[in-house]
């Protein structure tokens, strides 16, 4: 893994986030290389989800810079001064970044197939026939080819999350963000979703995964980042960190979740 030429796809530099006076992120630096699976763990309230949401601007960036594929997210830099991007330009940046939410957020008034087809047809302008063919392939890939005509309310949580992954993949993003994708699932449904994510990682997708699944981090992760109190406490090879955490806080957290 370490032999391949490492091209950074995501660069987070000095990221701070305030909600009013509440200082949630206190200077995050992080790099994710092309094709890498970067797993982020940490106690709730550590800011890991907020950090992830900053990457596709679901949260505004209070301070610092994020770039994806060499493109500055949310701003245009002119003579060293930052200018906010227009809503349209932000939407264009988001098309390159897929996101999977903890609570799936499928469109309940659309079937699984329509959920996956929505963005290719209405954002990319693909023909319906083309988008449908591709959507059925994607649903097959996540093991739900036979559920195309079902509404989200007719699917289990695990199935909904897999449709949500297919929906994000339909835009052919260069980066996938996972915000605690298995936290809202019954334990016996977690495995199916993790398997889909493992396949995706094997196919070379660059992924940032915020999760509590330490097993997934150990098995699939290329890097593991432990966050607490809005800062990165420790980062490195997942297997090393899990086996031999260097910081007391990491040790304490791993002790509680393992």
């Amino acid at each position: 893994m370490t032999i391949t030429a490492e091209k950074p796809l995501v660069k987070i530099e000095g990221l701070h986030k305030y909600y009013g006076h509440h200082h949630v992120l206190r200077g995050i630096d992080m790099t994710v290389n092309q094709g890498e699976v970067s797993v982020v763990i940490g106690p709730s309230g550590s800011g890991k989800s907020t950090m992830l949401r900053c990457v596709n601007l679901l949260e505004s960036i209070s301070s610092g810079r994020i770039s994806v594929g060499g493109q500055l997210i949310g701003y245009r830099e002119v003579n060293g001064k930052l200018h906010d991007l227009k809503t349209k330009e932000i939407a264009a940046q988001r098309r390159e970044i897929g996101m999977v939410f903890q609570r799936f957020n499928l469109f309940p008034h659309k079937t699984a197939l329509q959920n996956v087809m929505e963005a290719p047809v209405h954002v990319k302008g693909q023909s319906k026939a083309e988008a449908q063919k591709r959507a059925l392939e994607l649903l097959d890939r996540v093991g739900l080819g036979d559920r195309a005509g079902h509404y989200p309310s007719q699917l289990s949580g695990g199935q909904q999350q897999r449709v949500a992954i297919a929906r994000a993949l339909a835009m052919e993003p260069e980066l996938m963000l996972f915000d605690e994708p298995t936290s809202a699932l019954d334990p016996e449904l977690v495995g199916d979703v993790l398997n889909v994510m493992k396949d995706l990682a094997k196919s070379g997708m660059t992924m940032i995964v915020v999760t509590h699944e330490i097993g997934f981090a150990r098995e699939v992760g290329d890097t593991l980042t432990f966050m607490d109190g809005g800062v990165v406490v420790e980062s490195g090879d997942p297997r090393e960190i899990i086996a031999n955490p260097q910081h007391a806080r990491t040790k304490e957290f791993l002790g509680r979740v393992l």
Partner: protein
Amino acid sequence: MEHHQHRDEPVLNKSVPVRHPGRWLSAVIILAFVAVFLQSLFTNPNFRWDIVGTYILDVKVVQGVGWTLLLTVASMVLAIVLAILLAFMRQSDNPIFRWSSWVWVWFFRGTPVYTQLVFWGLIAVLYPKISAGVPFGPELFSLDTASVVNATVAAILGLGLNESAYLAEIFRAGLKSVDKGQQEAAEALGMSKGKIMWRIILPQAMRVIVPPTGNETIGMLKTTSLVLAVPFTLDLTFATNALANRTYLPVPLLIVAAIWYLVITSILMVGQHFIEAYYGKGVDNLAPAAANPAAAKAAGAGADVKHSMKTDFPEESAR
């Protein structure tokens, strides 16, 4: 989960149900009242059912029904268009839009519809000419207000603008009822603001918006009887009143009007049922293939999709 036929199947409990004497008593009392009322309908000569029969299909009455329907539909369409606009403005980032929308609702909801109708009837007195041009500068064109805002237009404007204020609040509540995650998921896919609103948020908000809007439409049907204030004199209430005054028989003509209002209301309720089923897709209405053509097409396209009617959750599909 296989079901084996056991010889010792459980014996179902046969319990004695709780008795409800109160239900029987209330049924007897209510049925007695209904019987007395029905008897009076047939025996009381003052109802003058013969007059009801004579006038129910009278040309003036039927035309009145037509005008009442026209006023209802036209003013509701105007109100819905304005209300969507007002609701969008109300949650806009632009403070001028938010403020304008608030003032509009405050004014049109805060004054009686009767007053507003009288006002629209008098608009030609207030502004004899409508003209467009540069303020304090040259005029581009000019029209007589009375020729543009005739009684029909005044009635539709009066009813529609007043209603838009109420509907704006209903639409606002509907938009607010949609989970924030829907907006975020659509944003994360890179959808534009307009597409998010029209394709994701509004269709889901409609589930909440349709029932009270149906209520408002039925209310509007009867509010049209106030257009006498404009004055507009062709609607159902005015037509039946005029006939009542001429024949000195108010009761049978009130019954004629009531029957027609009930008929129209019933038709509107049927329409509302279908609109609710349409916007309940995926939530209240889970007929998969029939309700959406794309899935039906998909089911025809691939053999593996043919099983799509099967579900892991029989208890859910049975609903």
